[in-house]
């Protein structure tokens, strides 16, 4: 199968294959996509692990992410600096966690992080309100927003502390079989 490519060393490719759910071809294709975002910034040759980060504003222009209401949160969650500037490693990691073969547990962990806007390890009412705003284009009235968020917390909160901890979230996800196929971005 040995294609002649000079983007990565064999060891790098093996590391990518071992640590993500992608095959060799997909990783090379991903590199192509990554480079498309900022051709002047991203070098063709990654053999010496250059430390290049593509900013958030460019990454969310990808067609897979452009229309997603959570695009900013997704990119921020997977970026190492938490601000949305992604290196290629983060890029691959993001699409690997969101791909079809990624297991439910991993997706649950990242979904929790994405919905947790204030990063306090809880999904509180404020987080839910922001989520709901993004999902409905901000066209619900504030009372309706509050009502829906309250009901959502009531349904999912197991330990009655008025916010969703990871255990509550995981419990709810385990009962939603659609989650795996919904929380999936095809690249």
């Amino acid at each position, binding site marked *: 199968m040995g294609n002649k490519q000079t983007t990565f060393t064999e060891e790098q490719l093996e590391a990518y294959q071992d640590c993500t759910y992608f*095959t060799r071809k997909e990783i090379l294709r991903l590199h192509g996509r990554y480079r498309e975002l900022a051709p002047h910034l991203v070098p063709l040759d990654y053999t010496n692990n250059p430390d290049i980060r593509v900013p958030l504003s460019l990454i969310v222009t990808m067609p897979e992410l452009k229309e997603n209401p959570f695009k900013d949160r997704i990119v921020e969650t997977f970026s190492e600096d938490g601000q949305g500037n992604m290196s290629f490693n983060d890029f691959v990691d993001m699409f690997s966690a969101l791909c079809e073969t990624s297991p439910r547990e991993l997706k649950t962990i990242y979904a929790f992080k994405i919905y947790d806007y204030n990063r306090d390890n809880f999904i509180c009412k404020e987080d839910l309100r922001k989520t709901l705003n993004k999902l409905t284009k901000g066209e619900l009235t504030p009372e309706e927003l509050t009502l829906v968020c309250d009901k959502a917390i009531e349904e999912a909160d*197991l330990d009655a502390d008025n916010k969703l901890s990871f255990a509550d979230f995981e419990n709810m996800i385990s009962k939603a079989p659609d989650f795996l196929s919904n929380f999936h971005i095809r690249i």
Partner: protein
Amino acid sequence: MRRMSMFPDADPAHAAFTEDAIKSEMENEEQNLVKELVALSTTDQIRKIRELPMSFKEKKHVRTQVMEFKSSKQSHQFTRLSDCSRNMSLSIRRFGYSIKSARQTLELWHGIMKEIGGKFGSSVLNYFVLLKWLLMFNIFSCLINFGFITIPLLVYGHTPNITSKVGFRGLELLTGAGYFNYTIMYYGSYSNETLYGLVDYNMQLAYFFTIAVYMVLCGIVLIFSMASSFKKNFALANPASNNAWQLLCSWDFSITNERAVNQRKNNLRVQLKESLSEKAHRERQTVSEKLKHYGIYIGSWLLSTSLAVGCGVSIFYLCQYEDKAVDTETWSLLQEAETLLVPFVVSLMNMVIPLFFSLFNKFEHFSNQRKQIYAMLFRNVILRMSILGVLCYYWMYMVPQKFTCWEPMVGQALYRLVIVDFIFLMLGSFFGEFLRNVIGTTLQPRLGVPEFDVARNVLEIIYAQTLAWIGIYFSPLLPVIQILKFFILFYIKKVSLTRNCQPSQRSGRAAQMKTIFIFLLFFPFFVGALSIVAYTAWSLTPSEQCGPFRGLNSTFSVIGEWIDEVDKIPGSEWVVWIYQNVIRSEIFYFLVTLIILVIIYIFWQLTQGRKELIILLSQQIVNHTKQRSAEHSNGRQSHSNAVVQVLLARQQVEEEERRSASGVPVPSDISTSDAMMQAMLARQKAERQDEKFYEIPNEHPPSLDAVALSMAARQRAEEEDEYWSITDFNQSNPVNRFGMQARQRAEGNREDEPNDALSPVSSVMTQVMQARQRAEEEERGQSTRAPGQNPAPSGSSALIQAMLARQQAQNEYDDGY
């Protein structure tokens, strides 16, 4: 640092770590992780590394550490052997990766499916996935049929001695009769001899076993996929949590089309508004309305069943009417074309009658969309099953009596059905989608652009596959036709979808629908096809003059003959024994069925027990958290007074109570002073419940406590202004007002409360008891359960005294919680 901490309730007061401490703890964790990973096998290691919720750099770091650890461990031992084994496992893994890559290039339609999924969502994608899956079935069948039946015949067999008297006329492609009758297309042309080539190839056994093994394999694959689908999508699914689900799980991340995204957002908003307003006015139906509804339901069910039965009967009479010629060799063109009448009518019925069903649907009102889809599916299934059932009856009973070589006739009939069904599928796509789109956009803009009707389309391809499954026995090359049909259908549907349809507006539960589809594929359709084929093989006499089973009593007797032959080979008595006592004996099947029933019953009881356990455990979680938060609130205040604990605990409970009792939103920034008043009310309620439980005369008039509490609350409010940050709380009036209210309510009527306040109240009582216990212990100066709790100020207010007095009174009635 993105590592997820799974224990978020670490007390922030204790987070006084230095940087070095944090670093060393992290390294410690990493070392533990590496040690854990090294102990596993390589595939497990890789799987675990991939599942780590860490950034890529960290994963790579862990991986290098694991590899170093392993290599250093192994370098002490047999170096060459370990090198060898390591290289081998490495090359096996590389091989696995390259196979995975290769499979991806061969994967059919990957790009198209991604596009469809991105634009239309997963429910429409389910249709195409199912279509591809069925295509795989047919490809497999075609390969084994060619490999085991047709090719040996072609290579080594004799040409059939009945040649066709008519040449190839174009009509054969449609009717399958005429010239095709004597080709390898049908059962009739297969010989029953043993071919002598490289090996002695018994055609009879080959034919029988190929078909049988294929059907059994199909069944096994279907059962497994159905079971795993059920487990994932039904057993573990909770249909009750609607809002949380809509908010957090229902958004389809793979949709990339802007219009689709906007439509989904709109739809979600509409659904949320609907569900909010539903709570406000639940439909209260009068008896007459209910009767009317039920009448309509029953009426439409009766009507649809009678339609289905009527169709079946009419097909039967049509078959009989059409059945004239005995000698199939001298059909004229017109007569041959007439054979197309029955398939034409069948397909027409299958296309038109569901329109009637959807008309009925408009009059019925279903409570949710899913029930509507289920009802429609059920009716369509009944229609198609009844038509197929009648046809099969006709083929099994009437045709063998009329024709000497009857299997090819049945094969031809099935061929015609398949071809005409294909034509009608294309027509249906044309009318259903293209014309409907034209009408919807130009003539009647109100209708709008159509959505892709997943359920109807899925049912059509399931039906098509059933025809192929029935037909495999009679016409081994039918899967070839089916492959072509599905292949072309995929592209037609894809083009029609992208041109004519809009994305589905409701974000439905696609996974559950997929399970239902697989179940439908298996249960009426595959099982039906299998039973027809099995019945043919078991009970019907094969025709005398053609086909591989000519001259035998039944197809199955091939096995009997084979066993007789095997008997002659020495050392194979066990095979014969198995045949006689296991396969042919009824006791065996009876016993197996009995054992399976017992096992099912045991598993069912296990499931019931687990459900109860789940309920118990969730209640435990709730209790545990309440206790924990009560303790926390203790630790956080300097004025950690037992009473304040109680008040805070009651505040929580009271919020809960209010939320559960009425749908009124609880403002989230409820000021704690209000909470104290509410806590008082809760306490009054608790008292009342208390009294109801124990039926004691009231020793302390509740008014005394109310006033004492209100006084104390006012005191507290004045003292702890800076803690509670009361902004515009008018301190005197509401306190008195609530005090009066509480007194009134306590003195007032003691009507029965609705019982739904029972459980929060009982936990209120638990809290009260615990708080009182703590107060007791505090007074005695012992250390309490809650850590870091400061002792009560020695100048205990009237409040504490009131509490203690009450406590003593209650101790007489203490049940010992």
